[in-house]
């Protein structure tokens, strides 16, 4: 009995020691690893996505927001139905009814469905994979239709994509959202690119304890790191003016047979961009279907020779420096073609007006008269004013990808002569608008701005910035008079709005190709502001290679006036002689 008791006691003691040793191992030696394992079993981390900020027009309408988009995937081991049946059922629901690609669109629907069906089947029968992505960018209704098929093994991943209620309005202005190297959403080009940090926000995290069924344990851990939603951006952009501009430009391109066209409308006092459109455009929703060269905004990234629209800059500089007045008479320079070195410069129509005034030089868009003006001003002052008007440097517009063609280092007589009438000098559309806005607003060079407010917890206004004063208000007024006269008496006089004072200038520039000017191809533009003596907007219309006529007076000018008429009506600006 005693021995049996001793054995039993020893057994209990030994067992207790083993248990103690095991407990010591678990609670002391392996404590950290086990604590981690336990926490990972009951702790859950939920990611709270931060909505990307909206882009809002000046009237408070949301132009860009977010919408859910779905990725359809298949987990192959779970598929119950034959792959052929699944692909047959899915293909009609996944087919793009209106493909952007013209070659695809030309094919019959049945053929496109058949191709998609084959593609789906090959994905579903891939022997090397268990999980396959079948289609991205599905809408909510497509998801619901697929769910109604009750196909086991299919699932959806939700993401967010940008939603454009006004269709693809001003794609070049907005840019688009894609992904960075880490797969995080990132804005590219335009506003999305320039204001990516403000728009994207920061995702939040919630750490909490959950039970085996994933339900939260209320007495457990609960740490919350709230998300910071993306900031909203309110623009200067006027939705109605933007719509007018897009519609008119679209029709204008067709009417004048132009290869491309740009329009910028800006408030000359604040630099606020009221509208900006370029054609051909791309659809930011399906940017991946377009060539990457179409993403750049031509208005700020493409350079061109401005032609005669640049004459107002030359004239403004000369008037400011008292080199000429509107009544100054051109000397013998205007009597015929001007020869400088081996070059001979003629007027656009090869007609010459000896003894004409500077006012008439601008009205007739006389190249020889502009050479006289530039040489009266002097080479150094002329180059200085070109720079002071903002050419050769970025305007500072709050859009990604702005380019600023540098001015030449050395200026010969021929360079000054050609630049005086806008040839041999490269500018961007936004630089021209900014320069002419300085004449419209009384002499100040303003910084163009797209965004007027950044809206987060509080609204942060983006204040207008005046870069510098370029000319005096008196010179600005004189130039305005000259530009009004150029519009009403110049070669585009047949297009002008008789009931409004319009200050403007046409420009027809030849296109430089491989070091020489193409005789056939031109860039026709018209720049101006209205109403001339109380300007509400300054606008540039530029058409590339119009085929109905190479001249701006017959293409860009009438289009400018059509758009201006609509804008004046939209802004409720009465004509000079309205009925009482």
């Amino acid at each position: 009995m005693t021995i049996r008791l001793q054995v039993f006691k020893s057994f209990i003691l030994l067992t207790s020691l083993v248990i103690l040793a095991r407990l010591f191992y678990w609670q002391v030696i392996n404590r950290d690893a086990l604590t981690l394992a336990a926490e990972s079993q009951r702790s859950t981390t939920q990611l709270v996505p931060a909505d990307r900020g909206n882009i809002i027009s000046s009237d408070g309408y949301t132009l860009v927001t977010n919408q859910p988009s779905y990725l359809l995937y298949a987990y192959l081991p779970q598929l119950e139905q034959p792959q052929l049946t699944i692909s047959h059922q899915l293909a009609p629901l996944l087919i793009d009814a209106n493909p952007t690609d013209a070659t695809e669109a030309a094919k019959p629907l049945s053929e496109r469905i058949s191709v998609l069906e084959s593609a789906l089947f090959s994905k579903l029968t891939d022997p090397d994979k268990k999980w396959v992505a079948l289609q991205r960018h599905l809408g909510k209704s497509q998801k619901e239709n697929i769910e109604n098929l009750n196909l086991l093994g299919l699932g959806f991943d939700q993401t967010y994509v940008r939603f454009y209620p006004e269709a693809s309005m001003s794609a070049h202005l907005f840019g688009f959202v894609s992904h960075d190297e880490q797969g995080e959403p990132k804005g590219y080009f335009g506003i999305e690119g320039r204001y990516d940090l403000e728009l994207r926000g920061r995702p939040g995290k919630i750490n909490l304890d959950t039970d085996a069924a994933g339900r939260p344990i209320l007495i457990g851990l609960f740490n919350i790191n709230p998300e910071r939603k993306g900031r909203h951006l309110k623009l200067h952009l006027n939705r109605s003016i933007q719509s007018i501009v897009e519609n008119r430009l679209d029709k204008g391109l067709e009417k004048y047979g132009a290869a491309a066209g740009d329009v910028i409308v800006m408030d000359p006092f604040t630099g606020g961009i009221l509208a900006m459109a370029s054609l051909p455009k791309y659809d930011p929703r399906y940017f991946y279907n377009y060539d990457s060269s179409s993403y750049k905004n031509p208005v700020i990234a493409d350079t061109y020779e401005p032609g005669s629209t640049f004459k107002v800059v030359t004239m403004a500089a000369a008037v400011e420096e008292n080199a000429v007045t509107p009544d100054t008479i051109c000397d013998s320079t205007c009597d015929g073609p001007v020869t400088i070195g081996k070059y001979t410069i003629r007027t656009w129509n090869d007609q010459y007006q000896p003894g004409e005034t500077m006012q008439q030089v601008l009205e007739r868009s006389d190249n020889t008269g502009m050479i006289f003006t530039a040489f009266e001003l002097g080479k150094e002052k002329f180059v200085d004013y070109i720079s002071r008007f903002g050419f050769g440097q970025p305007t500072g517009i709050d859009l990604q990808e702005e380019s600023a063609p540098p001015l030449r280092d050395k200026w010969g007589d021929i360079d000054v002569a050609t630049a005086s009438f806008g040839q041999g000098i490269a500018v961007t559309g936004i630089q021209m608008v900014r320069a002419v806005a300085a004449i419209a607003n009384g002499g100040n060079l303003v910084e163009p701005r797209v965004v007027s407010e950044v809206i987060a917890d509080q609204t942060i206004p983006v204040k207008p910035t005046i870069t510098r004063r370029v000319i005096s208000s008196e010179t600005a007024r004189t130039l305005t008079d000259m530009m009004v006269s150029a519009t009403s008496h110049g070669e585009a006089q047949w297009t002008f709005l008789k009931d409004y004072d319009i200050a403007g200038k046409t420009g027809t520039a030849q296109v430089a190709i491989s070091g020489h000017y193409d005789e056939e191809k031109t860039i026709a533009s018209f720049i101006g502001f209205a109403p001339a003596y109380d300007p509400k907007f300054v606008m540039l219309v530029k058409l590339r290679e119009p085929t109905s006529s190479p001249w701006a007076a017959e293409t860009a000018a009438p289009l400018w006036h059509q758009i201006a008429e609509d804008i004046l009506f939209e802004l409720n600006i009465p004509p000079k002689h309205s009925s009482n």
Partner: protein
Amino acid sequence: MIKRLIFFLAFLVTAGLVTATIIVSSTYTTTGETLKKLEFQKERLSQENKDLERLILEKTSLHYLTELAQSRGYVPPQDSLTISDPSSPVALSN
């Protein structure tokens, strides 16, 4: 007698604590379930709200309204008459 009373009281306290633990645990479990449902509902309503916002944006877009107006036969104004700066209030001109 006192020993029995103490034993009985200890039993009662233990039983009470066990019952309380069961009730509290059960309550927490069901509250967790309710909370999850509420969160799900909140998420669904928030999603619905966003869907409706997008629908309103679509239906009030110039793009949509222009197409709708055209389909109903409206045309842009061809001519306009602007009345401005009346020399005297229009209502009193007669």
